[in-house]
């Protein structure tokens, strides 16, 4: 069949082909979405409905939590970065030092320990009946994760402001009577640093998934006599910690000794294999996307 080169679809398809061919980040986005779709299709056909539903919820909750953590990190980081700049600029020593102290304190706490404290608070709140819905529980954990991730955003904000303040365009805009807050928020951070933020947020998305799943795996032993993993929304980490998922993953070890075991892994141990695959594959893809963005934008 002859292609009609005048049709807009042809141009769109061609542009996409060229774009994906040239950009590593887009290539990996397509690969990631393709991989997840492939797993979803496979599971639709071969995974039992109960496990399928569990995996669907785990993926949805994990990604929702990670996205919320990224959004909160950006908001907190941006706001505190700006606050830090203006407190220093206006020589407000006390509040500036207090903010620096708080940030240093957060930096000194290992992230996992910080998240464990977050879970303890979550357990207490569930016990008190404060956070009942799964959505609000995920949001709480996303907030705790974002407290640690936002430090990186603050660093980025202050670094970008410090860099642009040395350039003439900052002074040129000031001398034209533009408000400093506008120059910083619109010109420096929005117009001139979007690619840096995009790269940082993609990386933080990966960090948030890793942290969320690591902590869920750790707390799978339970947190109190009243609150256990079953009270929390299911995530890829908590699903991985389930006994049947662990057995599925152990089954992969059998495949090393006996390759004929492979079909059973793909059809009978799908729950654990899917969780492990989605986790590892997502983290690899995010790493590659971030790397591609860094190269594309020459960061």
């Amino acid at each position, binding site marked *: 069949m002859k292609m009609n080169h005048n049709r807009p679809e042809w141009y769109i398809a061609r542009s996409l082909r060229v774009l994906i061919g040239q950009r590593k980040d887009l290539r990996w986005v397509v690969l990631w979405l393709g991989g997840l779709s492939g797993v979803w299709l496979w599971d639709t056909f071969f995974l039992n409905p109960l496990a399928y539903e569990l995996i669907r919820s785990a993926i949805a909750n994990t990604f929702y939590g990670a996205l919320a953590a990224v959004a909160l990190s950006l908001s907190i980081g941006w706001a505190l970065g700006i606050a830090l700049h203006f407190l220093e*600029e206006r020589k407000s020593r006390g509040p500036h030092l207090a903010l620096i102290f708080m940030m240093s304190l957060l930096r000194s706490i290992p992230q996992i320990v910080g998240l464990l404290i977050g879970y303890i608070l979550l357990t207490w709140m569930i016990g008190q009946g404060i956070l009942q819905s799964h959505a609000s529980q995920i949001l709480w954990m996303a907030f705790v994760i974002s407290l640690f991730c936002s430090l990186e955003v603050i660093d980025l904000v202050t670094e970008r402001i410090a860099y642009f303040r040395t*350039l*003439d*365009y900052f*002074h*040129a*805009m*000031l*001398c*034209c*009577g*533009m*408000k*400093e807050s*506008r*120059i910083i928020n*619109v*010109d420096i951070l929005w*117009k*001139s640093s979007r690619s840096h933020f995009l790269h940082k947020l993609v990386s933080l998305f990966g960090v948030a998934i890793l942290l969320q799943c690591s902590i869920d795996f750790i707390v799978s032993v339970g947190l109190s006599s009243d609150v256990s993993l079953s009270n929390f929304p299911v995530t890829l980490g908590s699903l991985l910690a389930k006994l049947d998922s662990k057995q599925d993953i152990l089954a992969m070890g059998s495949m090393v000794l006996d390759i004929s075991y492979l079909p059973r892994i793909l059809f009978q141990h799908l729950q654990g294999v899917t969780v492990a695959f989605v986790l590892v594959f997502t983290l690899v893809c995010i790493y590659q996307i971030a790397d591609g963005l860094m190269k594309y934008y020459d960061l």
Partner: protein
Amino acid sequence: MSVLSYDISISKHNRSLVQIENFRLEENHITFLFGESGIGKSLIAKAVYGLLPPEELQISLNGEPYVEYCERNHTQEIQRNSFFVFQEPSTHLDPLLTLGAQVEEGTLPQKLRASGILERLWNTSDQELLDKILGVYPKPYRPSGGEKQRFLLVMAFLKIDLLLEQMDDHARTMFVFDEPSGSLDNHFRDVFLSFLLEKFEKRKFTTLLITHDYSIISAVRKADPNILKDISYKELSLGRKGLTLTDFMPDNYLKWLHGQKPLRMFFEAPLSPQPLLRVASGMEVFGRRLVLTNMRAWNKQSALEIHPYSMVYLKAPSGVGKTTFAKAIMGLLPARNLRVALKNLTLTEQTPRNIWRTRVWGKRMTITFQHADEALNQQSTVRGTLSGLPRHTMTEQEILQLMAEVFDCEIDDRFLRTKVRYLSGGQKQKLNLIRSLVLDTNILILDEPFNGLDFRSIVQVLDILKERQKAGKGILLISHNEEIFDAVVNPEQVYYISAVPISQEKKTASV
């Protein structure tokens, strides 16, 4: 006389960078190429010389692939016999080799032969000083920009001397000087030009000299009339139809220049006893005292005063501190002994930043920085560059009218949405000026306002500045382009700035 003609097309990632037909160069002629910055003059010169990387760019020259063009005997002969002086000398000198070692590199002859050229371009016979320069590694701040530029010129003259020795009148040449006077003051620029013309008189060679400095025309006109017939002036311009090369009539520039008169000569403005701006001489910045003098009293310091209806010109060789001075009076640099009086407002180094922000910047005084590339946000659009300005500025309609006047074209939505980084250097400079002009402040400081502009734009911008002056504004001009400003500014309004190291001053005082 044969004419070299080139059809050049250069693109990157399918985006056209340069597209020009019939770019003509007369062989064994000196061609001065003018034109606004950023439209592709350097790229064209590099393409013709065979210097562009064919693996990174899609280049076609006279319809043939660039690799083939570079391999042609004609191109290789040019490269063998000639020299390319790059616009930015810092990036073209090896920081790990002394300047003396770099003079002996490649096809360049031995150092000893360079000493005569060095003496000429440094205007000195002090061998100790010249040896010192040859022993220097070209680090960012040493030698100075002017010295680096002169060093590349030394290399070019060495190649010219080699050519003169060859006694081969048919050897093909193409010496390219890309903005050779960009970092030179007028004195050293004239030294270079006279030396070049001297060599040219001995043996004609093809020379392409790219510049924005129209005042070079007056300097060249002083040369021997026998040489003048071998000198041509061309202008590259970017219009709606793309790049075009036209002959530039030097008489047009000279006629315009001689027709310029200081505004006060024919416009009797009511002189207010109180100046709009008064800056005391003697501020201390970066370990130097900046001293101001004026023709009214050469032997003593004088405060810089800008009255309504006046245009003041601040002069100094490059590197003395004109821009530093401007930044200091705008409160952008920490300066000791800063005394700035703006009618009923006195500003010193102790003045809180908040005062500058609320009462000075964009309200009473503004500045246009010299490098538009650095002064504008490249990621912003044309519209975005002009948004966020204080509310007392012009209406949108008035801004569009001013833009149409400065850009000399109709301003449509597409242009307003164009990103600054896609504008040519000249367009960026115009946008840079417009951003200050729309504020309509009483004091307007312009640092090298004609940087990167073509002659037509210079005339337009100067007309707008005169209009502002007639409207009662005070304008402070900072530039090394003395010829034009000397013509339009009243001699009494010309100030000279000199820098005295404070350590030296203290030593003298103690003695």
